Every structure is written in structure tokens, then in C-alpha cells.
């Protein structure tokens, strides 16, 4: 295991009464490094907490923020639930899909943007909302999205779905 992973793993094990509690936080750390949950991360995690790689996969696949496949540099997650739907999320979704030329959970061919429609993000007072690498954007109109897109293109986020 890489030294920094091993160090993080030990820190996490010390935090919990039982080893397996460290599993998801450890995978979050690995995903921050690699962009998704790699085979290596699964095997490292299995070794760390003492379960099989198959069990790790079963658990990791339960959680929507742990990616089983590579994603884009920028992950755009648009809320589609009731309050956002009532304030224009359908139109926003159509706009973004047309702008990026991608569908649900697809990544642009240049590997820059992954698009996902997600459920309620708990920002219903500023609907429609989205998250860009887990940072909130509020009251997003199609025009505002175009501005954001230019800003994102010019930026270099550290990790697609940053851990803290």
C-alpha cells in the first residue's frame, strides 16, 4: 500500500471501535487521489479492515458518491427532485445535456465533464441547484450555467469529488 494511504488507514482505524467503520472513509480518501474507487483501492481497503475485496465492492457499490468507474475532472450533479422541478430543473437539465452532449452518468469525450441527475440536495430555497465537485451553485438558470461552464473550463479542481 502507498505510504500516505497506509498512514490514513491507520488514523481511521484508531478513530473507531471496529475496523470496518474505517472502510468508507478510507475509500473516500482513495477516490480523492485517483478520481474513482480503483481495483487497487478495493484491495487496499479489504486488507485494511479485514474483509474480502468482493465484500468491499458490495459495500462501495451501495453509495452513490463512491464511483466505480472513472469520472470527469468536473462532476456536475443537478437536483431533479420536487422543489427544483417546480423551479425549472427540467429545463436546466435539458440545457446542460444539450450543451455537453451527454446523458445521465456520462462523461464528455475529452474527459472534462461528467453529468448526473441526483436527488434532493437540501438547498430547495435556492432552486434549481446543482453541485460541482460537491460545491453548491444556487438559482441556476441556463444562462447562469453557461457562465459557470466557462469558469469551470478555466479552472483546475484538485479532485473530482473532494474529500475534506
Amino acid at each position: 500500500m502507498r505510504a500516505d494511504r497506509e498512514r490514513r488507514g491507520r488514523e481511521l482505524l484508531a478513530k473507531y471501535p471496529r475496523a470496518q467503520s474505517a472502510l468508507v472513509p478510507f475509500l473516500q480518501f482513495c477516490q480523492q487521489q485517483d478520481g474513482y474507487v480503483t481495483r487497487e483501492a478495493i484491495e487496499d481497503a479489504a486488507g485494511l479492515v479485514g474483509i474480502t475485496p468482493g465484500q468491499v465492492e458490495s459495500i462501495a457499490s451501495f453509495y452513490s458518491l463512491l464511483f466505480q468507474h472513472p469520472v470527469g475532472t468536473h462532476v456536475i450533479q443537478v437536483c431533479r427532485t420536487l422543489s427544483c422541478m417546480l423551479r425549472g430543473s427540467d429545463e436546466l437539465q435539458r440545457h446542460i445535456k444539450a450543451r455537453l452532449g451527454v446523458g445521465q452518468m456520462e462523461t464528455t469525450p475529452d474527459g472534462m465533464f461528467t453529468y448526473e441527475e441526483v436527488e434532493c440536495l437540501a438547498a430547495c430555497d435556492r432552486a434549481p441547484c446543482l453541485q460541482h465537485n460537491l460545491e453548491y451553485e444556487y438559482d441556476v438558470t441556463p444562462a447562469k450555467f453557461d457562465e459557470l461552464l466557462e469558469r469551470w473550463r478555466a479552472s483546475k479542481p484538485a479532485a473530482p469529488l473532494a474529500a475534506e
Partner: protein
Amino acid sequence: MPYEPVITKGIGQLDLTDVDVYRSEGGFEALERALTAMTPEHVVNEISASNLRGRGGAGFPTGRKWGFLPKDGRPRYLVCNCDEAEPGTFKDRMLLSATPFQLIEGMVLSAYAINAAKIFLYIRGEFLDGSRVFRRSLATAYERGFVGQRILGSHYSVDIAIHRGAGAYICGEETAMLESIEGKRGEPRLKPPFPAIAGLYGMPTVVNNVETLCYVPHIINRGATWFASIGPQRSPGPKIMSVSGHIQRPGNYEVPLGISAGELIELAGGLFPNRTLKAIQPGGGSSAAIFPEDLDTGIDFDSLAAKKTMLGSGGFVVMDDTTCMVRAALTLARFFETESCGQCTPCREGGQWVARLMRRLEAGEGSAPDIRVLETINQTITGTNLCPLGDSIMPFLGSVLRRYPQEFADHVAAARCPVGANAGVAVA
């Protein structure tokens, strides 16, 4: 009419993420008083007497929940539920990042009351910003002695561990949350045993919502009588209502329970000009709708239960006459289809059936028998699952189907959406 803010006091005006600002507003006085002058039993009794009911959704009396813990010497855990994901609810996210020290004080005070060995704060994975703010505040609280070893010089010590979720609505269900903290798939447990007997790591555990715990210091400061005197006797106290949808000033409103639905709408600026009310979902995505004729209904646990709906999490979503009820119901059906953990067949398969039927209806491809299935499927889905998620699939859909049956029938007859505003909306 303005109401006295309690746990939202200062939010938007003061920087309550600064511990000294929080202190100058009376912060940590309740914790200090409890640790120096009150026994844990005394704190539990005060909370029981206040009749504080859980603000996460179920509305269970907090003091009674605490009282269920067996006195058998095993370590006890307090788990604070900040996995807010109920559609239309956005209060805990605000409390976490706008007033983190209040949450810390509430958690430590409650942990003292139940003599918890450790506190776990489960923060929804999507709340990256909030968890950053909270982590900084927690470090300050440790430095100042409000948490950790021998808190404020007393004999009580407790640590707070932050556990971040990784994307799963179901982990807001308390036993799913415990599974999740244990590093497993977030699948709800069969109850009994209840968490009070065998919870986290098999130990006696209390799971309380963020908002619930934020009220605890105020009840200790101002007394159970003060809290119990606000709102209806069986459903007392203030509560944050998250108001969104077709409303002029969406936001979090802390109101005394018992105010009417109409008053809450007025408080949030009313409807948009030239619109009329069509439906309200008063207590999150799992609650049945109320309608224009119900505007006098009290916003509290018992009044809403009498209307066959619930206060739930306080997510109050307003829908005006431009809303297609089929489209609204489809949105929520798809939510539950997506979020079912898959353990119980009625929820997993039933949720998919309902969403599929709704997609068909909304696309103008539905039939009259489809509507009859929707009218009766409730009997097989509701009450047949391990946890309340399965029971949440039908309440809203059933209520709007009963109130606006013609709108469903019109989708079949016209082979498209007749409401107009949402006509032709393609749905994934």
C-alpha cells in the same frame, strides 16, 4: 407576524461560527450549568417535561427515547443524524454550517444526559462545505474545553467523531445509519431490538436529529415549562419549517408549532401574483399532500396526523395551479424508486412499478387500468417493509390521485399532459 427565533437566532446577522460570538449570545451557558449543577437524570427529566418531540421526521418524544437505555453498564453511544435528504428539507444543513457550536453544545449536553461514551455525528456526504465548517468549529471547541477530556473542568469526558456519508438517502433511517457507521451497506435492521438496547456496535444507542439536539441547550437554559408553553400541548415548541416551491420568499422559518398552513405561506411571502394554490406537501417527500381547503390546518404533529399526513421533517413544498400533479407525483415516485435500498420486495419492486406506471401516464401512454393499479397498490406496498421508506412511496401519490382524479384521467384521455406548463416534458 414575527415569531421569536430560538435555534435560528442570529443566523444571517451574526457570525455564529466564531466561538466568541456564540458565547456572547449565551452559548455554552446551558452546558456549564448542566455540568456543574445538574445530574444527568435531572437533564433527562427536564427534556421529558418539555415534551420535545424529535425534529427529524418521526416525532418521537426525546426524553422517552433517552429513558429506554438499559442501565447495564455497557458503553452507550449518541449518534447525531445530519444525513438530511428528505425532499424539501434544508434546515439541518443550515444549522450545521451556520451555528455549529450550538450543535456541539446540544450534542455534548445530551451525551452527558445519557452518559454516552462517544458521540458520532453522521454528516451527509454531499455536505462538503458544512462538514468543513463543522470540523473547524469542533477543533476550536476542543481547544476551549467544551468537548474532550474533563469538559469545562467537570468529571465528564466525551469525544465527537465525524462520520461522513457517501450518498444514500436511506442512511437517514436510524438503523441504516448505524449499519453505515459500522462500514456496511446502509440497509435498515429488523426491529426489535431497538437501538436503545442494541444499537451501534451492539451497544445501547440513541439517534437524535440535528434540530432536536439544537433545542436541548435552550430547554435547559429557559426551562421545560417555557418550551412546553409554546404551541399545542402535545406537540409543543418552535420548529423550523423549510418552505420551498411556488412561493415568493422560500427559506427556513422557525415558527411555533400550531400555526396554520395559511399563516406559514403568508410568512414566506405568499404565492406568486395571479396564481392559486393547488397542493402543499407539508412534511417532506414522504408526506401526503394537503390542499387549498386545508389552509386552516395546524402545522404540528397531531393536527397534520388528523389530516392523514404528517409534520415529518418540516419540508413544506408549495405547488400552485401551474403544477401538473402527475408530474409532481412522478418526481417523487422516481425518488423512492432510486433510493430504495432493495432489501424488501414490496419497496424495491413496488417502487419500480409505481415509477414505471407514472412515467407511462406522464408520457401520455397510460391506460385506465394503470390508474386502478395506482389506486390499489397501496395495500401491498405500505406496512410490508422493514423501514418507513416503503411506506413513503404512496402517501403523496395517493393523496393527489384522490383529490385530482380528473387530472390523471385526462392524461390517459388526451394521451399527453393536459396541464400545459409541463406538457411534453421528457422524463428519463
